[in-house]
């Protein structure tokens, strides 16, 4: 019995060590580009809805089902604009809300119903973000933010006249249970308290300076490209063109390339869930595990065409691997989750990343400490 106890104990420890030595990574990628019927160029947004994936591109809205392109919707189908910047699915009604550079659209039952600045209460036709809050639809535009109540047809507008918008250019929205967060280009982050109807701004305490004078004293920069509320950690994350910030209601934490695993301070979007924070940068896709403080950055290697995976640990050590398949491009615009998989919007198509478990994720070619400095694509 004693021997059995020691054997079992040894097996548990060994498995733990093996797990720690062989974490899982996204090393299997399937890309959707012009080569396989996807629209060319940038993918601005991606939204997962069960087995459906909606991707917004400069040439319309793409619907994928079960991993295949099912339909590409354009203005001929009723979209108000060809450049699709954001998609939100109303889980209650099944309606899909689409933000384009020609207005807002609702896709339901095979029909588009569009709303423009001239024919509705929409603040502006340049729609960057759309999100659902119960039955309400929040819309981020270049001229402020709308909240639409589909039951009454009422459009509320929030801009510099009735909310602390230093700039009216709203880029992104993230909805929490109690607050809605807005990314404002040049205006920081704004939160709207749903119960008390109260706005609160979060701006860079360094003002307009590009240097970070006071680390972790506030938002790292006012040019905020996106915001993501994480209900698990009760933290919002803000991506800027000059670094990444998080705020848990009490403490700020800022991340810069020079002293984190970020490959670039220019971040187009951030998404966070559980212990994961994903930064979509101009030089690759980075995942931060906030529990272990480990960064993993994915990007294509321009020379080899294979995937470059750089792991940066809390103790300062780095570890580089590669993979046979990789992202479609290193300029990452956005991301969404499908269970354990991720769908990534890049400058040259849509990438579907699949996490591989420990054994399969052993490096295929190299396993050596990464050199200092970045490598350019």
């Amino acid at each position, binding site marked *: 019995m004693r021997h059995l106890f020691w054997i079992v104990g040894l097996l548990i420890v060994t498995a733990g060590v093996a797990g720690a030595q062989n974490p899982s990574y996204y090393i299997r990628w399937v890309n959707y580009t012009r080569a396989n019927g996807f629209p060319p160029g940038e993918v601005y947004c991606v939204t997962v809805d069960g087995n459906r994936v909606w991707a917004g591109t400069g040439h319309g809205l793409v619907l994928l089902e079960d991993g295949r392109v099912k339909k590409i919707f354009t203005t001929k189908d009723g979209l108000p604009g060809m450049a699709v910047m954001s998609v939100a699915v109303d889980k209650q009604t099944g309606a899909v809300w689409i933000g384009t550079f020609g207005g807002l659209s609702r896709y339901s039952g095979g029909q588009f119903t569009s709303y423009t600045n001239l024919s509705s209460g929409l603040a502006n036709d340049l729609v960057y973000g759309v999100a659902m809050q119960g039955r309400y639809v929040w819309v981020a535009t270049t001229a402020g933010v709308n909240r639409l109540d589909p039951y009454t047809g009422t*459009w509320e507008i929030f801009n510099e006249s009735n909310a602390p918008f230093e700039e009216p250019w709203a880029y992104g929205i993230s909805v929490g249970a109690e607050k809605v967060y807005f990314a404002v280009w040049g205006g920081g982050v704004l939160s709207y308290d749903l119960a008390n109807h109260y706005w609160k701004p979060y701006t860079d305490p360094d003002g307009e300076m590009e240097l970070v004078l006071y680390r972790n004293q506030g938002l790292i920069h006012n040019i905020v490209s996106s915001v993501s509320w994480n209900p698990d950690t009760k933290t919002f994350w803000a991506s800027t063109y000059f670094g990444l910030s998080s705020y848990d209601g009490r403490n700020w934490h800022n991340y810069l390339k020079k002293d984190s695993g970020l490959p670039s301070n220019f971040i187009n979007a951030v998404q966070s869930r559980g212990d994961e924070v994903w930064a979509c940068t101009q030089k690759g896709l980075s995942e931060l595990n906030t529990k272990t403080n480990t960064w993993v950055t994915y990007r294509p290697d321009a020379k080899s065409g294979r995937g470059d995976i750089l792991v940066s640990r809390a103790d300062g050590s780095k570890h580089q691997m590669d993979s046979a398949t990789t992202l479609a491009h290193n300029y990452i615009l956005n991301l969404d989750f499908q269970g354990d998989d991720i769908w990534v919007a890049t400058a040259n198509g849509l990438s579907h990343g699949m996490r591989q478990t420990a054994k399969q994720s052993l490096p295929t070619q190299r396993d050596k400490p990464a050199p200092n400095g970045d490598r350019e694509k």
Partner: protein
Amino acid sequence: MLLWQPGVAAALQRRDSDAGNTLPRSKYLSPVAMQLSPDGRWLYIACEDSDQVLAVDARTQQVTRRLRVGQMPRGIALSPDGNTLYVSNENSDDVTEIDAQTFQTRQTVPVGWGPVGLTTDRSGKILYVANTLGDDISVVNLQTGRELKRLQAGHYPEYVALSRDGSRVYVANLLARIASADEPPVSELTIIDTKSETVAARVNVPGVIQMRHIAELPASAGGYLLIPFMRPKNLNPLVQIQQGWYLTHGMAVIRPAANAADGPGKYHVAEVLLDDIDRYYADGFGVAVTPNGRWALVTASGANVVSVINTAKLRRLLLSQPPARQQELANRLDAASHFVAERLPVGRNPTDIVTSSDGRFAYIADRMDDTVSVVDMETMQVASTIDLGGPKEISRQRSGERLFFDASHCYQGQMACATCHPHEGLSDGLAWSLETPQLGRDVVENRTLFSIDGTSPFKWNGKNPNLQTQDGPRTAMYIFRSQGFSSTEVNDLVTYLLALRLPRNPHLAANGQLTDAQARGREIFFRDKTMDGKLIPPLDRCYTCHSPLTHYTSRVSMDVGTATPDDTIQAFDVPQLEGVATRPPYLHNGEALELEDIWTKFNPDDKHGITSDLNKAQLNDLIEFLKIL
């Protein structure tokens, strides 16, 4: 603000109740919706004017019970086990749940705005309610008595039906989608997937409006959906009436998709006319099929007739046509003779129709007679008439109401007043080229008949000083193309029209309290200075032409810069603004599809009031105020 006081707000909160109405409430029953108990023993009838539900013993044909429900009950549904009735109350925005055994009210469930058609799902746990004014469907959890959500429907969803397999709820929308006035109308059949409780498909039914009840044939008879409609020819200058030039009446025959989750492309839509070339059967309303699917029955509420359709012949006709000919079939006035077996005269203004489970009898609600006609399907004749106990003396108002729905004064019975003003006075939302000496010019938008008392003159050019002129010689000459109404009939009709009232405006809170946006919008409407402090000339102020003291119209004709080269005049009769939010499109020719368009697209020179100084938020506020009128 002197022009707006709480009392004014409350007075504008129109409720069709004895307390607020200066004209006597109709004492008639006006049966409009029916359900038959599964055993065929009881006929349940919603009576919209008496605010009652009746239970009629089908064997004895006697009314045995009466129960008062909410205001203007217009729809009725039965739970799958037959033990519970649900009645929609259009004017009180709620549903009454009734124990069918005790005939007592169990609870009243608030739903959306203007509920009419309703159905439970197969389990009896979920109720779907069509909200006409909200353009949506309430999904109600019957166990908790609470609304779960609202699904956006088409325009003015009125009647619903559960598919035979329970996988879908079909929603027929009365009005076409709001679209450019020079395009043919397209109506929508909204399909809800009951498993996901979401909208699965929005099926286009082209060229028609006024889809109402829905019946589904059994699979053995083809499984088609049958939906009566009216086909308007509003894009034609109305220079003649014969051969269906104004409009025709027919039925959509839709083959459903195989699966509930399928999109609209999987539904096949065909259309046939129920009219004959020399006789029209105006305003199809109710439809029912016999259990074996052999017969379909459609009520023509303007013709006082039930058309009995041989579904096998109908199916043969449709299947025998190649696709190109099927489109043509939608306009063939000789098609009905192939499949209509009988035209049975019934009571006045037949609305809903139900068939017994053995297929032996059909029951038709004769709304304007307060009776139910009983058709024996074996003999194909009206076997009896059930008197529901309404007043026997016909008032002038009631007489006028009967005329409103009666197409017999029109050439070959092509239309009644209700044909273009459905739902008792609604605008059909279409622009028509009426009575013009210059072909194709002066295309004008239809107008509401709700609360027009005190808004004379009438007609788009303001030339008719009163309703007697509007409905007398003008109607006879240009609309009915016949001798029209007698002078007594005209006066009765006018008595009825003056009694029509706007439904309760759901945008305004019941206590008259304005939201912040509505209050700001009110300030803008009643302002006399621009945003930068300049005085606005009196004629350019909103309230000058839209005076709140006279129903928001000063009853004059004004040039607001909206005349087009197709118009022969520049100044148009100022319309009243009460209920404006419920009747798009706007302007005299309907070219402003939304309220916003009036100022964003069609007021470049500030001729329609000074609005160029308003920013988007202020314009939104103005619209929020207009919505509460």
